[in-house]
C-alpha cells in the first residue's frame, strides 16, 4: 500500500510543508533521476526538481488518489521536464554549441556538456541514448519499478503500447550491447 495514501484525505489546516518534506525524502531521488533521464543536464534536473515540489506543495489538495503518489509526482516531473525542453531558454542553450563549433569556447562548452551528460554506468549511458519514447518506459520500469499499468497511466498511453515499447527498448539495448560498443 502506498505510504502516502493518507494525502488524498488531507483537508483543512495541516502542515503542508511537512508533507512536502516527507515526499521529498521519499521521492526526491526519483524526481531528480527521472528529470535527468529526460533532460540529461544536472542543473536542469535540479531546477525541475524544485519546480516539481513547489507544484506538489501547491496541488496537494487536488490529489485524490487516482494514481499512486509516486506516479502522480513522476507525472508532474515529466510535464515539468518537457515544458523546460519546449521553452525558448532550452532551445537557446541547445543551439549555442553549434554557434561556436570551431572555436575555443566550443571545446570548453563541449567538455562541460560532456561532464554534464555523464552517466553512472554503461547501461545508463546506452539508455540515455535511446529515443525518448523507449527511454522513458525503460527508465520507469527498470529504475522506478513502475508496473506497466502505472507507466501507461503516467504516459497516457495504452498498456499494450507500454509492453510493445518496453520490448523494443530492450531489443535495442541488447542490440547495442551485442554490438560491443566501447564506452570510454
Amino acid at each position, binding site marked *: 500500500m502506498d505510504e502516502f495514501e493518507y494525502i488524498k484525505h488531507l483537508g483543512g489546516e495541516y502542515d503542508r510543508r511537512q508533507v512536502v518534506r*516527507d515526499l521529498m*525524502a521519499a521521492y526526491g531521488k526519483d524526481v531528480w533521476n527521472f528529470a535527468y533521464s529526460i533532460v540529461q543536464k544536472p542543473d536542469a534536473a535540479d531546477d525541475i526538481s524544485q519546480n516539481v515540489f513547489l507544484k506538489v506543495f501547491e496541488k496537494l489538495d487536488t490529489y485524490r488518489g487516482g494514481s499512486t503518489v509516486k506516479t502522480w509526482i513522476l507525472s508532474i516531473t515529466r510535464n515539468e521536464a518537457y515544458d523546460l525542453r519546449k521553452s525558448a531558454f532550452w532551445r537557446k542553450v541547445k543551439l549555442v554549441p553549434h554557434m561556436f563549433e570551431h572555436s575555443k569556447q566550443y571545446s570548453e562548452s563541449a567538455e562541460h556538456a560532456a561532464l554534464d551528460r*555523464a552517466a553512472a554506468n554503461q547501461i545508463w549511458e546506452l539508455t540515455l541514448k535511446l529515443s525518448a519514447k523507449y527511454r522513458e518506459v525503460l527508465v520507469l*520500469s527498470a529504475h522506478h519499478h513502475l508496473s506497466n499499468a502505472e507507466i501507461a497511466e503516467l504516459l497516457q498511453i495504452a498498456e499494450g503500447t507500454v509492453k510493445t515499447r518496453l520490448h523494443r527498448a530492450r531489443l535495442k539495448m*541488447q542490440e547495442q550491447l551485442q554490438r560491443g560498443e566501447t564506452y570510454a
Partner: protein
Amino acid sequence: MRNHETWEKQLEESPHPNRGFSKRLEQQIEEQLVKHQSLRFRRKTAMRMLSGFAGGVVILAIVFVMIFSDLPGSLKLGGNDKQPTDSVNLDEDRRGQNDDPVEPDENVRTIDRFFNIETVQVGDTYDGLTVTEIQSAERFLDGTTVTFEGNVTLSGTFKHYYIDANYNPGDVVFSLDEASMEKLPMPDLYEGMNQLQFVLNLDEGENAEELFGPRGTSGEIEINISGYSAFVAEAWGGTVNPMIVEEIVSIETIPPDHPDKLNSDATERLNSYPQLELDFSEWLEEDAWTLAEWLASVQQTFMDGAIFDERRLHPDDREAIAEWMRQVFSESMTGRLLDVYVPETDGGYIVAGGYLGLIPVEELLAIEPRNDGESKAPLMRSETTEAGEEVWVFDAKVNVASPVPWHTIEVTFSKEDDRWVIENFSLQQIR
C-alpha cells in the same frame, strides 16, 4: 534469469555518477517553500478580495505591455546621462503630447474607454490611442493581448521593489492616479477597479537604479508613454502589470526605507527560550525525553520568532535577534544561524525564517541509541574538543509519527557563561 534482467539491474543505480537529489537541493526547495507559503497566503487573500470585488465569478489579471518606438526625448530612458533628483521637473522639455486634433476618418471605429475584448479590432481608436495588434496570450487560459500605440502622459506613484520581493522582484511598479486611469482604454472587465498598477520595464542598457533610485525607493512620477498592450486573462489575482516608459517628465523620489529605525515587529516576536534544566554529568536514559521536549520547544520558539519578513532590518534589530539566539545557541552557532535565517540581502537584512531542522516536528514515539557496530552507542556522551573543552553530544535515533518515521539526531552542547548551549546540530531522515 532472462538476459535483460541482468543488465537492467544496473539501471537501479542513479543515472548520474555524482549528481542527484542532494541535501543542498532539498534545503533550497525548503527555502522556496517558505517563500511560497507566504506568497500562497497572500494570493489566497488577494483572490478572496478580488473575487468579492468581481462578483465572485472571474479573477482578472490585466497586464499592460508598452510597445513603443525609439523617439527622442529630453529624458529618453538610457539615452543620456541625466539622473533624476529628488525633484526634477522637465515640463519645459515635454514632447510627444498628442495635442494635434485627429482628422476624423470614417473607416476608423472609436471604442469606449471600457471596450469589449471580443469585439475590439485592429485600427480601433480611443482618444489618440490606436489598436495595432490583438493576439492570444498562450501562457494564460483564454488570455488575449490588445496592443495600443499613441502618446499619453500619465502620473502617479511608483515603488522600486527589492530583488527578493514576492511580487515583481527588482521591478519598478507604477500606480496610476485617478486622472491618468481615465486616459487609458481598458477591457470592460476592468471597469470599476479603483487601482491600476504597471511594471515599468526598461530596454537593455537602461538602468532602473539611475532612473528611479536604488531598490526600495518610492515616490511620485509623471511619464510619457507611446503605446501599451492590455492583457486580459483568467489568472491569479495580485499580479502587477508591466509597462515600458518612453520618457520621464518629472520624478520625486523618497529614499528607500533603509533601516534607520528599529523594526519593532521583527523583535517583539522574540520570546524567551525555555530553560534547560538537565545536568549532563548525571545523565539518566529517561532524560532523553526531557531533552527532546526542550529541543522541540526551542525549535518552536525559534520558528515563531524568526518569521519571514521581507522588510529591511536595522543592524540593531539583527543584533537583537542574535542576542535572542544566544540564549540557547553558542556564539559560532548563532553566527551560522544568522547567515541563514537573517541573511544580508538587497538593501539590508531580512528575516528569512523557516524550519530549524533541530528535531522533527511530528509526535515523538521512540528515542533509541544509534547502532554503533555491535554495541549500542550511548544517548549522551562526553567528549573533549581539540581546544580541550568539554562538550556533550546527544546522539540518538528517533521514531516519529510520519511516513518517514526514523531520524538520526545529533546535538552538541558546549558551555558558555556557565550554561549549556547548542554548539551544533544535525537531523537526518533514515530511509
